[in-house]
């Protein structure tokens, strides 16, 4: 069994983004999703500091210090893009104008509760950023996370142990082992990596899983 690499997880999430969608990508791994959009699809990326039509990182002579993304890295604007102020950026988020928000997660619960803003580590002051706004506002919230922690503990739980970002907001979970939908009937496994059985996947997951009738192998492209 070979778990997906992080770029492969980003690739997998990118395949489900439909032509014409307005999409916000969270800081960290979700940012890489934009590198893997299938050709022929026109996607408009939103950044909560006030951009629509965010492009790739600038080339050597393109960098503009006044043009950054939500992670405060330098970025670019594609033709057709626009700038607006912060309250409008979040009106777009809270008002359901974004088709999709992809975020990282520490934990997800079986009913789609999301915990991704604090581990309550006393060594660091907490920060929430725009996570709570995105979790309740976008039309769809999908998360990318490793299936277990470094010591093998499940991160898909019956109930989140870490403080919640929002209740019942996640609709699809991409891990390095599976693609899982949050449904009214519970967690439905759509795809599993090659050579991992459903029973083995369940052992790595605290919350009960169901296997979809039409489940299929989780493909791992690009091959790196």
């Amino acid at each position, binding site marked *: 069994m070979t778990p997906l690499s992080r770029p492969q997880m980003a690739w997998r999430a990118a395949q489900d983004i439909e032509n014409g969608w307005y999409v916000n990508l969270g800081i960290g791994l979700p940012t890489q999703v934009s590198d893997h959009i299938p050709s022929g699809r026109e996607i408009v990326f939103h*950044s*909560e*500091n*006030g*951009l629509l039509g965010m492009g790739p990182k600038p080339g050597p002579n393109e960098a*503009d*210090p*006044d*043009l*950054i993304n939500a992670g*405060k890295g330098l970025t670019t*604007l594609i033709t057709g893009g626009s*700038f*607006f*102020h*912060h*309250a409008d*950026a*979040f*009106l777009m*988020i*809270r008002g359901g104008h974004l088709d999709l928000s992809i975020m990282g997660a520490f934990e997800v619960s079986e009913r789609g509760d999301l915990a991704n803003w604090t581990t309550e580590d006393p060594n*660091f*002051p*907490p*920060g*929430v*950023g*725009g*996570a*709570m*706004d995105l979790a*309740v*506002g976008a039309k769809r919230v999908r998360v990318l996370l490793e299936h277990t922690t470094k010591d093998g503990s499940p991160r898909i739980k019956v109930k989140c142990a870490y*403080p*919640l*970002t*929002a*209740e019942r907001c996640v609709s699809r979970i991409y891990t390095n082992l599976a693609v899982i939908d949050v449904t009214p009937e519970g967690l439905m496994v759509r795809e599993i990596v090659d050579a991992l059985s459903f029973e083995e996947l369940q052992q790595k997951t605290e919350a009960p899983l169901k296997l979809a009738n039409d489940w299929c192998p989780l493909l791992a492209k690009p091959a790196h």
Partner: protein
Amino acid sequence: MINKQVPDIAAALDGIRDGATILSAGFGAVGAPDELLDGLLAVGVRDLVVVSNNAGSGMRGLAALINAGMVRKVICSFPRTDDPRAFDAAYKAGKIELELVPQGIISERMRAGAAGLGGFYSPVGVGTKLAEGKEVREIDGKRYVFEKPFRGDVALLRAHRADRWGNLAYRKSARNFNPVMAMAAELTVVQAKQMVELGDIDPECVHTPGIFVDRVVVV
């Protein structure tokens, strides 16, 4: 004749007192009024409450004020930046209070204050620690928390172009919190890169109308 331009930073900051609530624009370093904040450091006011998205980076601007012990409380969404040493040190030493607010709620609370509203019901944070102690109300089957408006005594902004009426235009993602903070303070002070003649900013492209602006200093 209306002329909101002032000669220097000292004049721009005149009258800011201990205990003031300062709305400090910027997203990270972009659009942040660093020279005005440095000027505030020289004035030496204390006990400030600062509303900003972040809590300063390195030892410039807001970080320098925090390092000098001039800030009593920070209201922000994400205090950590690439170099959060000033805030981290004050926080660990128990010398600064942190009120964490979801990012979009910071700007919306200021917008509500600017608009003369008494607050609003928001779905953000329902069922989380950040909604503890807030009124929860169900509207058409969905739960919301009540968010109060807030306003500042002073807003410190950074614009790209300004004219003598205080009309402002920002540049690219440096716009961020500037327009909403301009509207939400008793005294709005702007550092502008360029002062232009009245009418040189196309009326279709004025981002902040001068009605919201009190003082402009060219930096």
